[in-house]
């Protein structure tokens, strides 16, 4: 339990008032059109979406998760957090292609890249899945805040869940993405400042870097200082092949769209940037800040380990970074720390409220239910969708204990087997909607088989996660590659239009030649260096 002084409460209320002010200030901009409510009119300079990328991906559960892996694995744990590196290539590859498509959402992009019934099925599926996913993330992050408030103030969990998400909903409902991104900028600055202050404070409290290193040596734990302390090529808890698999997934994944679950909020930020260049820099720099943040946390958690080594309970060691703040900061700054935690929380909640509403409004309501809807009507549908997501997230949050294991599995199956198809849809002209759809379905079946059913019946042993990934990739390809070749290529008119607009990289030669033949590109474009 933490006792707040007057100054602590002052910081908290001042911050909440500042956030609500955003909603009021940008209310008029947010209600102008659907493009304003969901993309801030596509006119933002790079540093605003960059701050939003950083703030969104710094949630209340992020320091808990990072603390857990660093406390357990030492500096090797940095690589568990390195998945954000997909933005390193994406910023200059898939970001550029996606920004040029102008699609509001990833679901809409499917109908620009593919055509016919397959494209519509994909759009409906991805939109529905994203509405569900955003509601789930809202519940997940919301209940993490509920647990933290119970720990700090002794409140029942539902109060922390409902109170802060509802405060956030006020400015999201009022100003849409304008409110989200402007608040994210302030929240990002506050969160980064506090992460720097608390982490350095923790390092100093542990006696400084030299003392931390000396303590780890004395404890016989100096391996924790080596980020490359592999346990073997394939054996142990940190094998080299896991590290290489992670690098491939993260870095090469940048050529695709949707290879990381974070792609979906990033896609919204990409489209809100005012130019292709701004989109690239926003994604690159926002993720670079995440990489720096993770390193700051890593050293702070090492400091915590030197103070409290060998805590047996994972639940307790996962609170390491929060404990550094609440145990070592002086009175007055504790309230500022909690205000920053609220900032971290609201930035994630606001993004997922607005993002889920964008799929519900643009891809479900506008495209399938009321294509002739006016801009005013669409903004109102956006607000109603936001409210439904908020209420749904309360239900998810309260039942999260029971369903977490299932949903983590659901997240995993959404990622592993469709990693390669998510790249192929960007780089290979012949990959069609039926191939992509079949990869989702095959992935669903194979993930159950490989992860649960076959090991349960002792047909195969329980595979390490990197082997599960490669197995599902190969098994999935045995389904979707034949289906792609057995079904017709996409309509050439649609492919040419998409190519001329988005200029994708990779294997697009027949489409490029057709575009040249139609006079849409110059003849010298027919033979492009390094492309097929």
């Amino acid at each position: 339990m933490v006792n707040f002084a007057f100054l602590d409460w002052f910081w908290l209320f001042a911050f909440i008032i500042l956030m609500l002010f955003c909603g009021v200030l940008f209310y008029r901009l947010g209600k102008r059109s659907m493009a304003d409510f969901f993309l801030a009119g596509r006119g933002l300079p790079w540093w605003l979406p960059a701050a939003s990328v950083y703030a969104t991906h710094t949630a209340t559960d992020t320091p808990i998760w990072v603390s857990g892996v660093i406390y357990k694995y030492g500096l090797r744990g940095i690589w568990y957090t390195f998945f954000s590196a997909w933005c390193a290539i994406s910023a200059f590859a898939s970001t550029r292609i996606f920004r040029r498509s102008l699609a509001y959402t990833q679901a809409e992009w499917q109908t620009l890249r593919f055509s016919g019934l397959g494209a519509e099925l994909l759009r409906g599926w991805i939109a529905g899945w994203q509405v569900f996913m955003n509601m789930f993330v809202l519940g997940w992050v919301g209940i993490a805040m509920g647990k933290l408030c119970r720990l700090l103030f002794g409140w029942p969990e539902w109060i922390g869940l409902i109170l802060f998400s509802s405060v956030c909903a006020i400015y999201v409902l009022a100003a849409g993405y304008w409110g989200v991104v402007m608040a994210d900028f302030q929240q990002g600055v506050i969160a980064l400042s506090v992460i720097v202050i608390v982490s350095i404070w923790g390092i100093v409290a542990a006696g400084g870097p030299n003392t931390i290193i000396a303590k780890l040596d004395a404890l016989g734990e100096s391996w924790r200082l080596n980020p490359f302390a592999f346990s073997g090529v394939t054996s142990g808890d940190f094998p080299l092949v896991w590290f290489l698999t992670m690098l491939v997934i993260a870095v090469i994944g940048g050529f695709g769209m949707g290879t990381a679950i974070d792609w979906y909020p990033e896609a919204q930020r990409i489209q809100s940037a005012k130019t292709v260049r701004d989109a690239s820099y926003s994604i690159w720099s926002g993720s670079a800040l995440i990489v720096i943040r993770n390193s700051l946390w890593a050293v702070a958690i090492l400091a915590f380990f030197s103070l409290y080594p060998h805590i047996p309970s994972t639940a307790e060691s996962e609170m390491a970074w929060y404990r550094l703040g609440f145990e070592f900061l002086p009175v007055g700054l504790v309230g500022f720390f909690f205000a920053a935690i609220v900032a971290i929380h609201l930035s994630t909640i606001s993004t997922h409220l607005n993002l889920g509403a964008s799929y519900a409004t643009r891809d479900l309501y506008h495209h399938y239910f009321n294509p002739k809807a006016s801009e005013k009507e669409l903004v109102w549908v956006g607000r109603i969708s936001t409210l439904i997501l908020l209420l749904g997230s309360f239900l998810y949050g309260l039942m999260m204990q029971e369903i977490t294991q299932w949903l983590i599995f659901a997240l995993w199956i959404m990622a592993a087997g469709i990693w390669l198809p998510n790249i192929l849809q960007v780089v290979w002209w012949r990959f069609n909607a039926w191939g992509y759809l079949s990869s989702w379905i095959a992935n669903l079946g194979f993930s159950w088989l490989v992860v649960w059913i076959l090991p349960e019946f002792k047909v195969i042993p329980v595979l390490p996660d990197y082997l599960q990934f490669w197995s599902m990739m190969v098994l999935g390809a045995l389904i979707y590659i034949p289906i792609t070749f057995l079904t017709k290529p996409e309509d050439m008119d649609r492919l040419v239009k998409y190519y001329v607009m988005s200029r994708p990289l990779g294997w697009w030669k027949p489409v490029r030649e057709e575009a040249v033949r139609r006079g849409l590109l110059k003849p010298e474009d027919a033979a492009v260096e390094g492309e097929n």
Partner: protein
Amino acid sequence: MRGIKTHWTAEQADRWTKEDHVTFIISPLIYFLLAIGVTFSLLLKWYGFVILGMSAVLLIVMIKIIDPKLKAISEDYESKQKQYLEDLEKIARWEE
């Protein structure tokens, strides 16, 4: 920088060239060096500051390589964006 193109027409910039490929290699390398460099700098190890310095130098190199191209792409593309947005609305409203 020798061998690196710094003046682009819009049509040239639309193509994927060696400047893009070099960026694809440098960019993840910067993230990698940043992760390690920040960590060891906070632990006051001399090599942490060296790695951090290397990431800063590579960042400058990357911007020098890719920025002129991104500028050319952006300027040309923004002039066509209005037409593309109208087409997008037609698809959303089932007019195409």
